[in-house]
Each structure stands twice: as structure tokens, then as C-alpha cells.
């Protein structure tokens, strides 16, 4: 057993999970900011991104060092490649949170549409769940868990579509219109968090099966 390699792999996974946890915190924070229309909290979330970024950097550095030093092959190599992708996905998730935070700040004076906020809450909690499931199944090399993400994602997508419908129906009020234009992006961001979770799931599947496969293909919707 190559102790050095396994240690490095463990460290890498731990850093990734750490990053995942921070992303989830970020997501919660920004949803609170949306719910409570709290620009300060939004600022904190924006600042908190540095934390995630530092983990992102750490993972990148670890990956580079590991590849340079340990020559991983086969499943070890797939693990490292998966880690690269997951790292990117998580960093994007955090960025999306930042985007949401920024959008929130732009429209915090507008009193929000309650139904919409509820939809967002639902999407966010689904997103959080998906992130958890994705990381969890990654750690457990759990193919079924990873594949279950597709179904979860469908739920978020549906919520997103509902939000778009709702916003389109919203009409009139110019301030609300701006708000709506911003919120459609928020919704899209939340939806994309789900997409990233699916990406992570795909990486798990790749890690386990050794095959590249997209769970869903944007250009070939089922």
C-alpha cells in the first residue's frame, strides 16, 4: 500500500468536502438574505466566498501536487480527475450564491412576492439536499445515490419553470418588473446549483464505472 498516496487522496477528499460544506453554508446564508432582504447578510455571503475560494485553491494545489508526485492511475486517477471537476462545480455553486447575493442587494427595497420566495426556498433546500447527496454518494462511491440526483434535479427544474411562469404572469408594476427580471436570474442560479450537483453525481459515476457519461444532455432533453 502506498501510504503517501492514500494520505494525499484522503486529504484531497477532506478538503473537497470541507469546500462542499462551505458552499452549503453560503447557500443557506444567501437564502436567508433573500428571505429577509438583508443587504448586510448578502455582503457577508459575498465576502464568505473567499473562504470557498481558498478551499478551491487548496484543492487545485493538492491535485497538482498529487499528480506531480504520486502518479495515480486507474481509480486513483479517476478520483483525482473527479476531484478537479467537483472542485470546479463547488466553486461555481459558491459563485452562484454570490451572484444571488448581489442580485438581492440590487432589489432589497422591493417587498417580494411571497409565492416566489417560497419557490426559491424550496429550490434552495432541494439544491442543498442535492449537494449533500452528491457529496455523500461521492464519498461512498455510491452509484445509485449519484443517479438519484437526476430525479431531484427534475424537481428543481420544475420549480424553476414555475417561477418563470409566475414571473411572466406577474406583469405591470415597474419596480416589480425589475425585481422580476432580477429574480428570474436568481431562479436560474438556483436551478444551476442543482445542475452542478448533478455534475458531481456524474463524476461519482465516472469514478465508479470508469466511463464518461452525462446523466442528462442539454442538447438531448428526454
Amino acid at each position, binding site marked *: 500500500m*502506498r501510504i503517501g498516496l492514500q494520505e494525499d487522496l484522503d486529504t484531497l477528499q*477532506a478538503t473537497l*468536502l470541507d469546500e462542499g460544506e462551505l458552499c452549503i453554508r*453560503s447557500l443557506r446564508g444567501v437564502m436567508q438574505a433573500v428571505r429577509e432582504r438583508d443587504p448586510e447578510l448578502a455582503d457577508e*455571503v459575498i465576502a464568505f466566498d473567499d*473562504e470557498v475560494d481558498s478551499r478551491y485553491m487548496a484543492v487545485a494545489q493538492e491535485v497538482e501536487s498529487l499528480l506531480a*508526485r504520486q502518479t495515480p492511475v486507474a481509480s486513483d486517477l479517476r478520483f483525482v480527475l473527479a476531484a478537479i471537476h467537483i472542485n470546479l462545480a463547488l466553486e461555481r455553486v459558491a459563485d452562484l450564491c454570490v451572484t444571488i447575493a448581489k442580485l438581492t442587494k440590487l432589489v432589497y427595497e422591493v417587498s417580494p412576492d411571497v409565492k416566489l420566495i417560497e419557490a426559491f426556498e424550496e429550490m434552495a433546500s432541494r439544491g442543498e439536499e442535492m449537494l449533500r447527496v452528491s457529496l*455523500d454518494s461521492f*464519498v461512498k462511491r455510491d452509484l445509485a445515490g449519484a443517479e438519484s440526483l437526476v430525479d431531484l434535479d427534475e424537481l428543481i427544474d420544475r420549480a424553476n419553470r414555475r417561477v418563470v411562469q409566475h414571473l411572466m404572469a406577474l406583469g405591470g408594476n415597474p419596480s416589480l418588473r425589475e425585481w422580476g427580471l432580477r429574480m428570474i436570474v436568481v431562479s436560474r442560479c438556483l436551478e444551476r446549483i442543482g445542475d452542478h450537483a448533478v455534475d458531481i453525481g456524474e463524476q461519482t459515476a465516472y469514478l465508479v464505472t470508469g466511463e464518461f457519461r452525462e446523466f442528462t444532455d442539454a442538447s438531448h432533453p428526454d
Partner: protein
Amino acid sequence: MVTVPESQTVPVTLPGVNVDAVAERGRPLPARELREVVFDVQGLGVSYSGNMALQDVSLEVYRNFVTAFIGPSGCGKSTFIRCFNHMNALIPGARIHGRILYHEQDLYGTDVDPVEVRKRIGMVFQKPNPFPKSIYDNVAFGPRVLGMTDGLDERVERALHQAALWDEVKDRLKASALGLSGGQQQRLCIARCLAVEPEVILMDEPASALDPIATTRIEDLMHELKRDYTIIVVTHNMQQAARVADMTAFFSVTRGGEGQRTGILIEYDATDKIFTQPSDKRTEDYVTGRFG
């Protein structure tokens, strides 16, 4: 910094993560000031019958680090590592220039006894070289010649334990060491060296004669041993240096006036640095296999 109040969120639990451990295992090496210097090499050069084989090497070797020397064949790695325990004194015609301080004491000062030096600074060689004696006698040899014969049995057992060999040989301590496999023999040589309780272990290509599996075990062992010892290792296998070493020194060869080849130190840095962003073009060319 993290002002998102944790109390507001249920603790996020993810299986298999121990965030503290991650922090503790942090890759970056201790800062230069915090490292304890074992060897301070100052402008070292070695010549064989007048031909400089190695020139003007200055570096510091730190305690409880694995320090690797890499470089093309003939660049003087072996020559260099043999300076640390006076093994060059056995080669007629070899001369040392410059200084090596060992805990601030000149290793080549007058009055320094090579035997005492070699007691403190052990060495493991390229090819496993067990003595043609029993396993026990191999390990006991060092203590015996140094007169450390009290509690010899425990000493031998301890050394074998440390070298991760005890379980494999405990039932046949009296059997010939030549009956061991190559990898076991090399671990025996390590145990032999540990039995005299050195502070530093020098290894000149310790795994180059071994198959990959035995090599892995030796590398693991080095990883283990660095907790208690300071290890200097010469290796041809860059991947090996990359895997086991904390610090790596890259040596190369310059051609002097009359086609004479002299080894020089090109770069000495943290291993990660050497293998991801070497600062010297020659190092980069060597590690990426673009040399020559």
C-alpha cells in the same frame, strides 16, 4: 471571517470528513526559520585524484525531513551523500573541500573520528547488502562493534520493528539473511542501521535494485521513519523523490575546460516546488524528461 452564524444552521455533516485532520495534515512545510538544521553544507566540493566531481554545493538539511538528491547519472549525488558520513575517506584519492557542519560542528574538523560520525549517521546502500550471517547477527553487528551490547536482544527487536520487518522474521532470527527476498533484505539493512540509533540515515538509491512492490514498502518505511529520523536519499527515480521527499535538491553536470565533468547543485527547494514549478529551466527540463 465566517460570519454566517453557525447557530442559524444545522451542523452540516458529511460522512468521511474530518476537517481538523485536514488542517493538521496541511501540506505546506514549516517555515524556513522553524526548521532545525542538521547539516549545513557550505561550499562543498569533492575531487577524485584532482578531478572535481562536485563543486560548490551549499544547502541545509533539516531535521525530520526526507531530503532527496536527484540528477543525471554522474552528477555527483553518490559522491555528495558519501560526504556526510566520511565514506569518501575509504576511497583513495578522494578529497573534500569546503565544510559540512553537523549541528554546527565541522564534520571534517581535526579530531573528528569517522567511526563516531558513522555511528550517528547511518547509511543504506543501493543494493541490499546483508552480511552473510543470520538475521539476528546482521542487526546486532553494529551494536556489537560499537560495544552497545547491553540489552542486545531488545535492541535488535526494536530495530526490526521499526524497519517493519519484525513480523516477517521473528520466527527465523537465526536463519541466514541471504534467504530473505530483496525487499526484506533492504529492510534488514535499514534495521541494521537503526540498531545503532543514528540520528540521520543516508540512503543511496535504496530501492533501485528492488521490484515495484518492495520499492513501495521501502518508501512507506521512509515515510514512517522520518518521524524519528532525518533521512537523506539519493534516487534516480524522480517519481520516488516526488513521493517521499519533503525537500529535493537537483544536481547537474557542467563540462569544464577539457571535457571534465563536474557536478553542481542547480536547485534546492520543497519537493512540490521542484516538481510543479521549478525555478530553473534545467530542473524543469530534467523533471519533464526533456534533458539531453
